[in-house]
């Protein structure tokens, strides 16, 4: 009984933290219309900042607290609102989601960059020097008491703000009816700003309170938030009282699982994954109203031409050939992942780009592909590769089942929960038997992966595997182009635009959704297997949720509807990291930060960089002479590099200049022609033979 009470006290004090963080999440979601995936990351940054002030620079605790909660947190909230969220306000729900994912990635990268992750940073609990309070048979530490008191104060303060002040009433009015609130003098922008400030402050309070209990680790702290997500989902992302209730359920569940779960090899992971499991169940159990309004601006899904597709499919192995001949042996392995990760990124195109289903667990599914190949294809058996693809596809079909009930951010949350369950539990399991079949995953460590036997050749060298991955990416890209041009691709887009119309035309929703999830999971599984071959040994960490997020981000930046997103993502993910990596280890986190920053630029080209590049490159591509000249210079560079004749950096610079010169020239030429108005023809620019006809036609029409 005493033990039970002790667990209850622990559970309730954790619940208090989840409640504080969860209520901040609900506040920003309802008032500003944004589900903030980076909410936990903001709390994490606050915890690090507090450590820096209070421990690093030895500021007095009250001063450090005031600086973080009253200055830094509100400033961060305002910055996020102004710089990140307002530009995408007019775009769809998916774009707002991507912004917060970018922010999450950015926060983690920033924390790792500023605070070296290899240094331990202990934070002492509040009032650690005082003896614990006795409440009957239970002992309550001062930190736990403070935590609970803070949660109660937050609850009371929020109630007072929302129900007893004009500003709070305005916030609720904006949730109810934004347009009407605007007519009655409320400023929805001001309400949104207030929500961001308060939301980040609450995240900061939660982060500082929870940090002493766990290690001060950027990734771990950011993901602790899954428990707070669960609490918020209990409140259907809109009710504060139910969020508090949900927090109590999650907190107690975690504490009791920690206390009473039997100790064996299979169950400790379940305890860690419990909040995610509960999140998945809560998502499926409660009906969810989407926020009102459809996407205001439909971003078209480009229709790739046959010629462009063939060029792309040929360019991929071509690039691989260049890499194989130019690179030194030891950099082939990291550069080889360009194509393998490209395949994983390509899996987003049919699923998110065509069908509009935002799934954040593609990297986890790639992990499944990698381990299945690792185990079944341990001696390079060629049949094991299709088997890995099929197993991954089956897992994808499993994910599709909740996806039938969830959409938009709820699907993103559901797939996040799925990824976390895999990370914390399934991937940590030792080998086990199901129905007589022995299933082995990461064997609680790492799995050795080898290359396949193909046509009597055992592919093992990095160069061979790189070429194999490139051929696979080329073929998969062609396959996705065929999909987009064909019946199934049309159906996926139709389904996304109007499920009601699709159904009344005789289309089956279930079949199409399961098929697209399975298909894209199969592609991801293939990518995972190829990735594993490059790395030779794989661990679960390489396929976790946070590892997959930058890939998703770059794919979004590239344009999820463009088939070229696969290659683009692979290149943009690997190459800058490698180049910067040569400058020093500190640059690694910088490149992650750069990806996040690029994601934040999404508002400027919502249909993706590839669409923009295509538009910019179309004119120079028609100029055969210029293109030919650039091609010759590039080929020359390749030859020199392959012979190791000249310094690599210099050649890279020359190659870049040669590659971009046609575009710059074409852009300059366009500028020259468009701007001159007709009355200045012959004056500011030479008279052309066709001008006379143009003018006479224009005057006749007028």
């Amino acid at each position: 009984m005493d033990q039970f009470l002790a667990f209850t006290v622990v559970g309730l004090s954790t619940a208090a933290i989840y409640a504080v963080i969860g209520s901040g999440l609900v506040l920003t979601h309802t008032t500003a219309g944004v589900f903030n995936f980076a909410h936990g990351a903001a709390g994490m940054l606050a915890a690090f900042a507090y450590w820096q002030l209070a421990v690093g620079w030895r500021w007095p605790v009250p001063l450090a607290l005031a600086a973080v909660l009253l200055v830094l947190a509100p400033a961060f909230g305002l910055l996020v609102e102004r710089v990140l969220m307002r530009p995408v306000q007019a775009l769809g729900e998916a774009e707002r989601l991507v912004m917060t994912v970018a922010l999450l990635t950015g926060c983690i990268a920033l924390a790792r960059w500023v605070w070296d992750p290899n240094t331990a940073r202990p934070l002492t609990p509040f009032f650690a020097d005082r003896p614990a309070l006795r409440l009957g048979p239970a002992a309550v530490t001062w930190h736990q008491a403070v935590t609970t008191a803070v949660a109660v104060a937050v609850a009371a303060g929020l109630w007072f703000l929302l129900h007893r002040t004009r500003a709070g009433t305005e916030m609720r009015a904006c949730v109810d009816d934004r347009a009407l609130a605007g007519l009655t003098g409320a400023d929805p922008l001001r309400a949104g700003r207030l929500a961001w400030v308060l939301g980040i402050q609450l995240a900061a309070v939660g982060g500082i309170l929870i940090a002493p209990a766990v290690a001060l680790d950027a990734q771990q702290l950011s993901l602790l938030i899954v428990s707070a997500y669960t609490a918020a989902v209990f409140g259907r992302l809109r009710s504060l009282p139910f969020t508090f209730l949900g927090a109590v359920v999650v907190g107690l569940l975690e504490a009791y699982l920690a206390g009473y779960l039997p100790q064996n090899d299979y169950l400790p992971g379940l305890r860690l994954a419990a909040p995610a499991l509960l999140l998945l169940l809560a998502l499926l159990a409660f009906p969810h109203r989407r926020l009102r309004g459809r996407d205001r601006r439909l971003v078209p899904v480009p229709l790739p031409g046959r010629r462009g597709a063939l060029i792309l499919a040929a360019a991929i192995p071509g690039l691989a050939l260049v890499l194989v001949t130019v690179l030194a042996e030891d950099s082939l392995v990291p550069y080889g992942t360009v194509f393998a990760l490209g395949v994983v990124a390509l899996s987003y195109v049919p699923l998110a780009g065509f069908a509009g289903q935002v799934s954040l667990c593609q990297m986890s599914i790639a992990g499944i592909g990698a381990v299945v190949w690792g185990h079944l294809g341990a001696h390079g058996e060629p049949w094991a590769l299709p088997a890995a693809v099929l197993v991954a596809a089956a897992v994808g079909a499993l994910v599709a089942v909740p996806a039938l009930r969830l959409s938009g951010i709820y699907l993103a949350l559901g797939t996040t929960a799925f990824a976390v369950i895999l990370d914390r539990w399934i991937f940590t399991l030792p080998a086990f038997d199901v129905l007589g079949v022995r299933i082995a995953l990461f064997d609680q460590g790492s799995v050795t992966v080898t290359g396949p036997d193909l046509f009597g050749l055992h592919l093992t060298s990095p160069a061979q595997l790189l070429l194999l991955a490139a051929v696979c990416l080329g073929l998969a890209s062609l396959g996705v182009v065929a999909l987009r041009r064909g019946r199934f691709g049309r159906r996926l887009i139709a389904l996304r635009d109007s499920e009601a119309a699709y159904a009344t035309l005789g289309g089956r929703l279930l079949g199409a959704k399961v098929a697209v999830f399975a298909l894209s999971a199969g592609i991801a599984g293939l990518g995972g297997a190829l990735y594993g071959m490059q790395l030779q040994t794989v661990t679960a960490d390489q396929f976790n949720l946070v590892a997959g997020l930058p890939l998703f981000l770059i794919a979004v930046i590239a344009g999820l509807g463009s088939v070229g997103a696969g290659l683009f993502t692979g290149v943009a993910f690997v190459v800058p990291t490698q180049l910067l990596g040569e400058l020093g280890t500190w640059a690694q986190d910088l490149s992650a930060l750069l990806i996040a920053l690029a994601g934040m630029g999404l508002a400027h080209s919502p249909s993706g960089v590839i669409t923009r590049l295509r538009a910019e490159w179309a004119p120079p591509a028609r100029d055969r002479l210029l293109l030919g000249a650039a091609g010759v210079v590039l080929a020359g560079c390749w030859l020199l590099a392959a012979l190791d004749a000249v310094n690599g950096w210099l050649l890279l610079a020359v190659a870049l200049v040669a590659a971009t010169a046609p575009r710059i020239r074409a852009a300059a030429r366009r500028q020259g022609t468009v701007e001159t108005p007709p009355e200045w023809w012959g004056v500011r620019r030479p008279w052309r033979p066709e001008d006379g006809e143009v003018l006479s036609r224009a005057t006749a029409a007028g």
Partner: protein
Amino acid sequence: MSLLELAGVRAAYNGITVLHGVDLSVAAGQVVALLGPNGAGKTTVLKVASGVHPPSGGRLLLGGRDATGIRPGDLARAGVCLVPEGRGVFPNLSVRDNLLMMTFTGRTREEIEESAYARFPVLGRRRTQHAGTLSGGEQQMLALARGLATDPAVLLLDELSMGLAPLVVAELYERVAGIARQGVAVLVVEQFATAVLKIADHAAVLVRGRVQWQGHPDSSLHAELSSYYLGSAT
């Protein structure tokens, strides 16, 4: 003299013209009913009059002065109040909080509540209830009370009767008549004509963006409406 006047107002959405030169005027203390079948452009007339939708041609006059192109917020401060279709209330806010939102007018919460409860006693009895739990008629009263809190000179009402029982509609229009008697110019858009015609001083029928008939509501109007709504005569 007319307080609100639309002179040759034209309006378009995405290049498609929905109002082809509408002339309409409302004097202080007058109730004008704007009738017509669905899709005639009635709501657009109110949007132009409240400044929400800028006209593509013609002029909007307020007390004889040109008010074309003035922003809705400034028009509201100048005394034009729109009660939009579908009950302009916040369903998840209590009656009190709904009224509290009107303090932007500069009046205090107490003043607003007092005058609202005096005019609509039922709201006083329900002051802590969420507006969404009120009956349709009570919600419409709350919307009216919120509109009146701005102390308007011109009141624009859109489809007050939507989804309400005939008796409730009749009672609401009695209140509207009372408001007009205090000197407010009232422009009412309605699809269901009977109830509003009992209190209207003047009626206009809008069909496909044009005023087809305008005058004192009498028996000849009934035949007109029949032809416009059901297309019998042409």
